[in-house]
């Protein structure tokens, strides 16, 4: 019996296929409805850039949700961290590295603060971060004195607006393909190392074709316009990092255990409090990174930067199959959820759907997605 290599279609993988199919339908529909504008390299590049901030927040949010918590303050923290970064470069005239470090440190410190209140003082995360939503928004307004601070530093703006040179894009693709092949080789070899049978190099190579094809297609599409946008590059790095944390680390496993059954986790020797503290800090760091992209893209820090971003991030996680009760959800799903939301935004804007209608449609889709999920769960 070789369970490690057995292909299995679990409920979560089935769900992922369905979501990809839904995304495909949305794309095909918009492509048709927009007279073939939607699926062009230019629009796809824009779409990816537009989703990057939400998706980065969703990666961090997913881990918090999996642990059975929630963070309503990320939009406000994003505004505050971005404000600090802008203040550092424009008002205090520091260089870009200081701004980057400042934004991330602010995010981490705020995350730790929320984590301590939640895990060690037993205040529900909903309350802690609802307070945070108000307080940090107030802090941005105080910091910026109600004004908008433009970014004077051009390198800073490049974070949000520039693209990788085409050759660097292809070089990255090559590196990524080599990495995929290396993983496939190691996986095949481990079968032998652990005495589970003969390595199946050919089979693993075959399985690697799909990710390799994806990498080539992605770089090709991005390079067909202006090259990989920097925000998209950062998103990819964050998503890979998040996937690594949730799938391949003890910390990630503990998050699922704590969210799945906090008592069982505690009695199994897991330090629930410390892990919850860590996951809030991690979300804080990612919020800091997202704030840099957001501020750079807009070209300024404003008092209402990031308003309602927390809801976009939570919606992305939930559409991606995360349970707000904790214990369930994937990074892949959250990113797909963010992509679906961004596709709806982008497509409806291209179709000149009125603002209010866009909101009504997005809200309905969020509720419908969860409703279908619950129905599917009851039947099984």
């Amino acid at each position: 019996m070789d369970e490690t290599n057995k292909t299995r279609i679990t409920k979560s993988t089935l769900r992922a296929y369905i979501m990809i199919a839904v995304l495909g339908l949305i794309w095909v529909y918009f492509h048709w409805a927009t007279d073939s504008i939607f699926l062009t390299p230019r629009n796809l590049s824009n779409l990816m850039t537009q989703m990057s901030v939400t998706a980065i927040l969703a990666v961090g949010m997913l881990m918090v949700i999996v642990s059975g918590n929630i963070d309503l303050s990320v939009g406000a923290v994003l505004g505050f961290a971005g404000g600090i970064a802008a203040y550092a470069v424009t008002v205090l005239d520091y260089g870009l590295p200081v701004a980057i470090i400042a934004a991330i440190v602010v995010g981490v410190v705020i995350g730790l603060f929320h984590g301590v209140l939640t895990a060690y003082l037993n205040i529900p995360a909903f309350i802690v971060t609802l307070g945070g939503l108000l307080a940090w928004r107030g802090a941005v307004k105080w910091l910026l004195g109600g004004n908008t601070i433009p970014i004077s530093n051009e390198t800073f703006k490049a974070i949000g607006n520039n693209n990788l040179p085409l050759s660097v894009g292809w070089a990255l693709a090559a590196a990524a393909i080599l990495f995929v092949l290396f993983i496939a080789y190691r996986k095949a070899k481990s079968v032998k190392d652990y005495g589970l049978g003969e390595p199946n190099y050919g089979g693993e190579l075959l399985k690697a074709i799909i990710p390799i094809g994806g990498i080539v297609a992605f770089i090709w599409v991005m390079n067909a316009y202006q090259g990989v946008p920097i925000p998209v590059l950062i998103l990819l790095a964050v998503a890979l990092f998040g996937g690594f944390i949730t799938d391949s680390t003890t910390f990630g496993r503990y998050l699922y255990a704590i969210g799945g059954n906090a008592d069982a986790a505690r009695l199994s020797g897991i330090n629930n409090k410390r892990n919850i503290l860590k996951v809030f800090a991690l979300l804080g760091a990612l919020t800091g990174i997202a704030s840099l992209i957001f501020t750079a893209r807009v070209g300024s820090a404003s008092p209402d930067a990031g308003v309602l971003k927390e809801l976009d991030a939570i919606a992305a996680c939930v559409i991606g199959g995360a349970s707000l009760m904790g214990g369930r959800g994937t990074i892949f799903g959250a990113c797909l959820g963010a992509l679906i939301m961004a596709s709806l935004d982008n497509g409806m804007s291209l179709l000149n759907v009125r603002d209010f209608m866009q909101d009504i449609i997005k809200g309905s889709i969020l509720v419908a997605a969860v409703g279908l999920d619950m129905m599917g769960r009851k039947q099984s």
Partner: protein
Amino acid sequence: MPLLEMRNIVKEFPGVRALDGVSFTLDRGEFHALVGENGAGKSTLMKVLSGVFPEGTFEGEILVDDEVRHFRGIRDSEAAGIAIIFQELSLVKELTVGENIFLGKAPSWFGVINWSELYHKASKLLKDLHLPIDPRVKVGGLGIGQQQLVEIAKALSQNAKILVLDEPTAALTESEVETLFVILKKLKERGVGMIYISHKLDEVFKMSDQITVLRDGKTVATHAAAETDKNRVIAAMVGRDVGDIFPKAEHEHEQTALSVKNLTAYSVDVADKKLVDSVSFDVKRGEVLGIAGLMGAGRTELLMAVFGAWQGEYSREIEVDGKSTSIDSPTDAIAKGIGFVTEDRKRFGLILDQTILDNMTLAGLRSISGRFLTNRTRETMAAKGPMKSLRIKANSSLTVTGTLSGGNQQKVVLGKWLLTNPKILFLDEPTRGIDVGAKREIYAEINKLAKGGMAIVLVSSELPEVLGLSDRVIVLHEGKLTGEFTREEATPEKVMAAATGHN
């Protein structure tokens, strides 16, 4: 003419006959105690009486005032004058005493509550019972004892003629128990019939007119309290063939693996209430130490406190392998080589949404995989051992634990702890609610582990199980150590006597 008569009640659950032709009578003003081991059928019988199990889900007849009654739900039994006070109080802590007494029946006019009438009625009711409680204070602010009395007042507000009390004194202090008894005696004078479920035989003999013993879903004896004694009641409670499903195994043991001194654990909710009161015990390598006791005796709390997992206050000294050590958290305990198969697998043992593999490797994850990174292949390899030796029946280790049978779930929890390579293993109710086949397999595994040199501490409410597996038995009663027996000395009668605080 009896007040209440239950005739030939049979209640079946899938695979188990919980009540097997039980008959029970209660007269006006009679105090009738219902005793028996955990799982003897006392609670099931009371659920039948109260309509929790509605008519049609059981066989037999219920007569109140010589009239056959058909209870389709709790409302019907309440209307017939039956009130039950369950172990867990069913009061709303955030509401006042008066609101609780008239919950759902508040005097009102088109939904608008007449507060002055409500509080007037409530205070009259409390005065009748000589309870010095202000009906306007919140229930949450009262002590557990007073809450219990409010519960009784609530039952009487519905003109209850039959009052069922399920372990009412479990959470009470001695003076509160006295107050309760004074009130119960008053009710008796008024003609209220009372059914009293208790493990405390002293109380039972002090208060009862009649005593009925249930065992394995059958009535084994009903006696007037004056005509019987504690020893006969105990004998009736335990009189069961231990049978041979316990493979007798002699274990060699000399070296003390774990020694616990003066363990005291306090209640989480009630300040200063000791659930375990300076208990000391030790267990040797290769020995199975059984801890017997009735529900609420403090057995789980004892193990939790040793393991560093008790959430109330606690204090104790611990030696592992003869060396004094400190254990402040489950993480510490695991590092010192202690494993803990907790009770109630669904609540404390498993993550039901996750696979067998994820559950099994959870406690030992860092030693199996690595400190920071997980390794699926190594985990799968590690889980294969217990999957096979415990004969867990599932398609693969990737089966979700929520879909397994109780026995297999229990084996997964056991497997989780075996993967931490414990030197000392605590087992808390390891066979609760699982079938006989799985029980046998778990018994065999316990013997095998002991033979391999593991020190095992076994808590079980099933007396035959404790007696059949243990080399030595200690008994707890209300948090205190009331007996210690070698395998040869440990007879059901002696252990039950110690467990009921009568020795």
